[in-house]
């Protein structure tokens, strides 16, 4: 932390920051589940579907919130936002997308292999990774285009933080998973591997075709902060008193919604990433 006093923080809020605007459309979702706004139209712009080769997206990736990299010891912090949702209930989350890939099909029942999706070898900067045991990060299965309605299950083969590999508990992927849906993988770690973290994704196998190819993949994120949505069309404000997470250079900031109903709700407002 180089902003070590409130005076320095207040000065940065007033005169040394990047301001970002948010104006995202609503999208279909599931109450109680997370939904990424990465592919949602609006501002920031709708991101492209990730390719089949896993990459480390950055602040320069289309769809990310923009800010200016700093030269050490100066750094950046998410110190303020004021956002209003069209829905009541749920929560707004800000994540750094550290790795993502896509292009997987919901109608293929043979194993779909993913090459190079490993946090230890993909070239992720240590400051974006956080803890060396990957405990600051969370993997998700993420939809980039709607899947089909037919019931199916996905078994995901992963590499754990100790280098061992194994299958996660199967997760249902039928029922028309909508674009943006984020299914967290940590709860799928079998009891025998509890305490380990997921370091990489090796393959995914669907038990049946869902009937629609869709497009899905995997994203690993580092959640920075979040704020509840108590009322529709009433702005919620995140301030320095909520904690000011550091935004490291090149962080690929995206917004996700923990949905209180069956849509994400239109989201509008702005925020500041301060420097110092």
């Amino acid at each position: 932390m180089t902003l070590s006093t409130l005076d320095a923080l207040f000065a940065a809020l007033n005169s040394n920051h990047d301001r970002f605007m948010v104006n995202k459309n609503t999208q279909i979702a599931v109450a109680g589940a997370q939904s990424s706004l990465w592919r949602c139209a609006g501002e920031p712009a709708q991101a492209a579907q990730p390719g089949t080769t896993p990459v480390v997206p950055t602040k320069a990736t289309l769809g990310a919130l923009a800010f200016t990299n700093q030269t050490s010891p100066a750094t950046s912090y998410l110190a303020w936002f004021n956002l209003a949702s069209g829905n009541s209930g749920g929560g707004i989350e800000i994540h750094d997308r550290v790795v993502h890939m896509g292009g997987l099909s919901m109608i293929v029942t043979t194993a779909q292999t993913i090459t190079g999706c490993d946090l230890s070898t993909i070239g992720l900067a240590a400051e974006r990774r956080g803890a060396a045991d990957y405990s600051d990060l969370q993997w998700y299965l993420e939809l980039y285009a709607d899947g089909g309605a037919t019931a199916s299950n996905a078994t995901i083969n992963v590499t754990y933080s100790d280098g061992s590999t194994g299958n996660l508990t199967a997760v249902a992927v039928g029922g028309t998973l909508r674009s943006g849906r984020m299914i967290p993988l940590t709860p799928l770690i079998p009891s025998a591997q509890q305490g380990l973290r997921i370091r990489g994704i090796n393959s995914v196998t669907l038990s049946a075709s869902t009937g629609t190819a869709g497009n899905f993949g995997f994203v690993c994120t580092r959640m920075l902060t979040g704020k509840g949505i108590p009322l529709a069309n009433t702005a919620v404000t995140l301030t320095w008193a909520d904690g000011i997470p550091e935004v490291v250079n090149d962080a690929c900031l995206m917004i996700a919604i923990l949905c209180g109903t069956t849509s994400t709700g239109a989201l509008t407002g702005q925020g500041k990433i301060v420097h110092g």
Partner: protein
Amino acid sequence: MLINPTVGKSVRVLAPFDESFPATYQVTEVITQPDGQIVCILTDDAGGFDPEYLVEVTQ
């Protein structure tokens, strides 16, 4: 692989899904997708499986 999938057959689930679905299930519905792929819907909310991941259990 489950040959001639039909409603009412008892089945076990094969790898890599057997750890998550270790029981014996019955086929409750057989769906043919527009592209010709077959999906067997199983009891106990086990979901849908291609016949290649099922094997018949004979008593």
